[in-house]
């Protein structure tokens, strides 16, 4: 598995806060946010809410019967000539991929973006074994050349300036130093085109896997996912086991949600549905198709009634874009593959809570993540549950003081009881007045000053979000 640096949250967060370019690129995330609002207005809030509701139902149902749908998926993949690998750990999955590569004498692999392979540390494992594995999503390619890890689920290199990219290309590819962005993309296009043509194997992630047909769906904008599934002789797709959905027609529901929530696009430039290897009379495409189904600790979410719904996540990144903490500290502070609000739940469960003690606290519990989440995943509730476990748990997991425990109970109560939440918000709005400077709260009295030492505390809005939302939904366009 890829190295875990979750314990360094505070240190890494400080570093990000001091980096002017990183702060600048984080501000640019608001662009995703606006695009998202526009996309929702276009399809109409009523339809959007119906899609969310439907998607949540489907996910709840599928996860409850996960064994059944995984078995069905595997059966169908095999029916169309694909092979299935059941991997309980990242290591098992890595070994399988390596085995297939060896069997085919593979020297060069092209990869399209996959968070799961990131989680497995796959590229690293392949390189150690002497197999070149090239990331082909432009952002991932940059990250790979820089030997870093993704900064954002869907915009991995958002923290890099064009000058930094130019330097990187000059150093690693011997390219002309240009800082014109289309020219930089052109350099990558040419370098990668060569790899696409030569590669013996393509590795992709999976956005959705349809149980009834054995189909996997891959969403990309650049077309690298299509390359990885068209050019090489062998295609391996890797999925977390929660990615399965029951039926063919469910794809319409999830595809309608994914890109609108992620970047505000109506749909990505490309979506590819792959069912097995190429048919024998087809013109081109891989002769072999493998599907790796990975657990790697997901069962700990599955068996946990409080945290199970974290498995509904479709990795759209909307909660990152909405999160005031992510908006300040960025993706690297979270120390592992999945950053932001959802990462603060998934990471502790996958790498172990004691190692990721700070993550459940990396949130102001403002609830924005849940509001924007297309699956309405109750992230604040789960963060509180984790905090409670840290506060009450085994000594090595303990973090909170008595005061904190009491406060948390209060929060839990407020989050669960909307009337009390509204009341408390109004009280807080009054109480904070003496602390406000230019609409921010630069200082909080102890014991809360740990928070404001490095950042302003966002004031409670004078009109609560819940009220604003109501007006919004009433005035929404339905065309």
């Amino acid at each position, binding site marked *: 598995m890829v190295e875990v640096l979750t314990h360094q949250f505070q240190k890494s967060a400080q570093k990000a806060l001091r980096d002017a370019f990183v702060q600048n690129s984080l501000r640019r995330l608001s662009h995703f946010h606006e695009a998202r609002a526009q996309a929702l207005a276009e399809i109409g809030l009523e339809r959007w809410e119906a899609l969310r509701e439907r998607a949540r139902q489907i996910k709840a149902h599928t996860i409850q019967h996960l*064994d059944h749908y995984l078995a069905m998926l595997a059966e169908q993949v095999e029916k169309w000539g694909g092979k299935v690998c059941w991997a309980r750990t990242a290591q*098992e999955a890595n070994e399988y991929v390596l085995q297939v590569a060896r069997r085919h004498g593979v020297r060069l692999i092209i990869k399209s973006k996959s968070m799961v392979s990131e989680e497995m540390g796959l590229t690293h494992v392949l390189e150690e074994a002497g197999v070149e594995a090239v990331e082909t999503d432009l952002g991932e390619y940059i990250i790979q050349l820089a030997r870093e890890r993704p900064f954002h689920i869907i915009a991995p290199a958002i923290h890099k300036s064009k000058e930094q990219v130019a330097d990187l290309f000059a150093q690693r590819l011997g390219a002309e130093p240009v800082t014109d962005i289309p020219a930089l993309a052109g350099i990558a296009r040419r370098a990668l085109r060569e790899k696409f043509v030569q590669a013996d194997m393509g590795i992709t992630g999976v956005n959705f896997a349809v149980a009834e047909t054995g189909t996997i769906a891959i969403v990309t904008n650049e077309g690298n996912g*299509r390359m990885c599934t068209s050019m090489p002789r062998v295609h391996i797709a890797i999925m977390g086991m929660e990615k399965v959905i029951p039926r063919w027609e469910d794809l319409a529901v999830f595809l309608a949600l994914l890109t609108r929530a992620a970047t505000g696009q109506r749909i990505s430039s490309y979506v590819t549905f792959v069912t097995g290897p190429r048919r024998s009379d087809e013109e*081109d495409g891989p002769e072999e198709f493998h599907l790796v189904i990975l657990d790697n600790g997901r069962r700990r979410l599955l068996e946990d009634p409080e945290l199970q719904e974290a498995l509904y996540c479709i990795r759209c990144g909307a909660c990152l874009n909405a999160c005031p903490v992510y908006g300040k500290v960025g993706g690297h502070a979270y120390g592992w593959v999945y950053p932001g609000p959802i990462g603060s739940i998934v990471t502790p469960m996958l790498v172990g809570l004691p190692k990721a003690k700070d993550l459940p606290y990396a949130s102001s519990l403002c609830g924005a993540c849940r509001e924007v989440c297309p699956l309405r995943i109750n992230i604040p509730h789960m963060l509180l549950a984790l905090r409670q476990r840290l506060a009450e748990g085994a000594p090595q997991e303990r973090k909170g003081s008595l005061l904190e425990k009491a406060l948390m109970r209060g929060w839990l109560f407020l989050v669960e009881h909307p009337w009390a939440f509204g009341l408390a918000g109004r009280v807080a709005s009054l109480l904070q007045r003496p602390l406000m400077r230019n609409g921010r709260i630069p200082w909080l009295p102890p014991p809360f000053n740990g928070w404001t030492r490095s950042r302003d505390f966002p004031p409670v809005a004078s009109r609560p979000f819940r009220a604003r939302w109501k007006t919004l939904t009433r005035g929404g366009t339905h065309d």
Partner: protein
Amino acid sequence: MTSREAFLAQVRYALRQTRGKGHAPAAEDPPRIPNTLPAWQLEAEQVRRRLLAQREDLLLRLERMAGLMNWKVVRAGTPQGAAEAVAQIAQQVGARSAVRTAHPVFARAPVEDALRSAGIPCILLAYDAHDPQESRLRLRQSAIQAHLGITGVDYMVAETATAILLARRGVSRLASLTPPRHIALVEPEQVVETLADALTLHKAQFLEGGDPGGYLSLISAPSRTGDIEQTIVVGVHGPQEVYLVAVW
């Protein structure tokens, strides 16, 4: 590698800790159209009827949305007009070579002739059954080097301007991918309102024939990236320009 049984047993064990018990769902939940051929044929019939009733409006919506999604839309009127439109585009962009698929639309639109009169060779990406391996390699090379890829579509979604292409004998995956410019010829009967419509029509078909198809490409815009400073650049791995030639 874990065995399927061991993996699923562990999933089942985890589920037993929560309310769900795993195993096959007892009831059809959430509700849906039953997975039988007659039910889906009926559903597909209803979709087709709805589409027919609003066709004029749909075509307009598609043209508008295609523009928003950065397709260059050319309204060709007739199949002959479509062939001429293709040749004109090829000349405008200075293409010197083209590849095409064997979509049925080319039986009506003589694209090859039109291109030949313009002095541009067009290769059909369909392998020779006598020598499949060798000819596949050659065609792959042609697809990689071509300036222009010309295809038909199987469905075209008006709501998102999404062209759906099923790869099969005569329809290479590469024709719409490797050339820097892609031209898609679209006929009115292929236009549907939503992705859900397309999936319904396709499902009714594969429930009958058995095969959902090995490879479906959904194409809604030029290849693009925003990965450097969130500045949009087109044509990063796939086509930088996509043309929708409307045969109506």
